[in-house]
């Protein structure tokens, strides 16, 4: 049961990052590899600030700010200096590796002896309920774990809601139009490159926030923790798409959160069944590859047999 709570919590925390990937990838078709470095950046900034005595809330917000700055950098490289989209992400990711080491002053920062957002959430819930553990059917779960889960779910759902509202504003409509058809946006006075830049900044903020929460949940920041983040985010977005099968905005955003949580659940089940954790990234990559390629292959073979696409 604790394992389940853990998987769900991780799912919600990474859903925040996946929401960022939703903005850049689903709206703009931009696969921002900088995400890998930005998640770690968020973790590093939050961890170092917390260790130095900053309030976890301030540290988390500062991490999100740093992430927005990093996202901006990717955006400037691509939209202003006209660097290829993948390459601008790779450059930022590579550069951030050193930046993250500098910020942390080493390859990891432990948070075991300091209060984090996860601890704060646990304290609040314990005070409210007066329980150390909660019985759920045959299992008993530490209140702290449930508090972390509730906190992560609240953050992910609130941000998903905020994103939904934002994308339906005048500004949000212009942003989506830029990703959907840059020429039509331009004809309506919207600069698609500017909108992409803003999206990358927003997405960077989400990723770094996710990293900050992740570091506080697992109790450390590590320079390697971001490896494979973008692919994970893509997996969440794609699963979400398959889950809801609609382009309706609110549903698609909710699908992304569900996709992230579901993916974490599948991962924890697979690990339980004996999947070597070292193989996890390979399996994730293969999964994303399959989802990208299979629809096209199916369509091609379907055509060959004279069967139309549904």
């Amino acid at each position: 049961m604790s394992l389940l709570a853990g998987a769900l919590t991780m799912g919600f925390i990474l859903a925040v990052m996946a929401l960022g990937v939703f903005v850049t990838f689903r709206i703009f078709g931009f696969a921002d590899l900088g995400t890998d470095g930005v998640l770690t950046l968020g973790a590093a900034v939050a961890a170092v600030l917390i260790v130095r005595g900053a309030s976890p809330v301030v540290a988390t917000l500062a991490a999100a700010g740093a992430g927005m700055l990093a996202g901006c950098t990717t955006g400037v490289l691509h939209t202003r200096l006209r660097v290829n989209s993948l390459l601008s992400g790779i450059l930022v990711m590579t550069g951030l590796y050193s930046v993250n080491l500098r910020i942390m002053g080493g390859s990891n920062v432990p948070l075991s002896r300091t209060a984090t957002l996860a601890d704060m959430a646990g304290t609040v819930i314990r005070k409210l309920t007066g329980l150390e553990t909660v019985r759920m059917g045959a299992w008993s779960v530490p209140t702290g774990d449930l508090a972390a889960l509730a906190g992560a779910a609240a953050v992910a759902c609130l941000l998903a809601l905020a994103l939904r509202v934002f994308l339906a504003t005048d500004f949000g409509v212009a942003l989506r139009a830029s990703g959907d058809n840059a020429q039509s946006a331009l004809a309506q006075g919207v600069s698609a490159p500017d909108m992409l830049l803003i999206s990358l900044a927003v997405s960077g903020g989400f990723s770094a926030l996710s990293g900050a929460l992740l570091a506080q949940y697992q109790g450390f920041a590590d320079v390697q923790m971001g490896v494979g983040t973008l692919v994970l985010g893509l997996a969440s977005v794609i699963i979400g798409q398959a889950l809801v099968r609609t382009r309706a905005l609110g549903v698609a955003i909710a699908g992304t959160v569900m996709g992230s949580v579901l993916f974490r659940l599948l991962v924890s089940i697979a690990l339980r069944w004996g999947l070597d954790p070292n193989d996890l990234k390979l399996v994730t990559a293969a999964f994303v590859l399959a989802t990208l390629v299979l629809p096209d292959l199916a369509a091609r073979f379907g055509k060959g047999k004279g069967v139309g696409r549904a």
Partner: protein
Amino acid sequence: MLDVRGIVKTFHPGTENEVRALRGVDLLVGDGTFVVVIGTNGSGKSTLQNAVSGSVIVDRGTILLAGRNITRWPEHRRAALVGRVFQNPFSGTAPHMTVGENLALASRRGLRRTLRPNESIRSREELAERVKKLGMGLENRLDDEIGSLSGGQRQALTLLMATVRRPELLLLDEHTAALDPRAAEMIIRVTDGLVRAGNLTTLMVTHSMQQAVSLGDRLVMMHGGRVVADISGDAKKRLRPGDLLDRFDAIRRREQIDQSVAEMLRETYV
């Protein structure tokens, strides 16, 4: 008022692909005038439109619109003054957004885009009312993705989007060329209606001789990057498609003569 003065544009200068698309074009279009531009392929008619819309930046000359010098303005800034409809019906609308959202996008053209709920939420009735005027029943499809509509329907909506906030200039770039004849006819009817109703200053490029004679108050013929004929008033009203063909023939003959004279001179003197 649109005031184009001596604009010159050369693509790929100094290479063997050099194209002198505009060789000094002057054009003054008064407020509320509907100008139809025709010309052969490579005459510069599309480049003229692109120079005005900002998708092409001219090498020389100035472009004034509504008293402002927009020669160096980037495209998205000019859009505050210019409404555009493209040849490709897929170019003017965002296919995965709803009809309502596309119209909401257009109703903020040239205005600040804030964090207020978009117009398709805020003033839905008003939006539906505007779509209703097209007389195509699209007011019942505000929540459908534009990608699910036909080319003609999308082009009609693009027209509406280009004019929903009154533009200082409406640019129509062969906007019926990619449609089937019935849809083209419908779009021409909508175009004429919107331009007349709003008394819009309009620059329309077309391939169709029929449209060129039946639409607009003034006809500009381009060839070789220059304006070669400018017909307005009664002369424009009396114009028949045959007259235009004659003029094109005359231009072609003159060019052939030019070429043969050059040939003769070369043989004689070189």
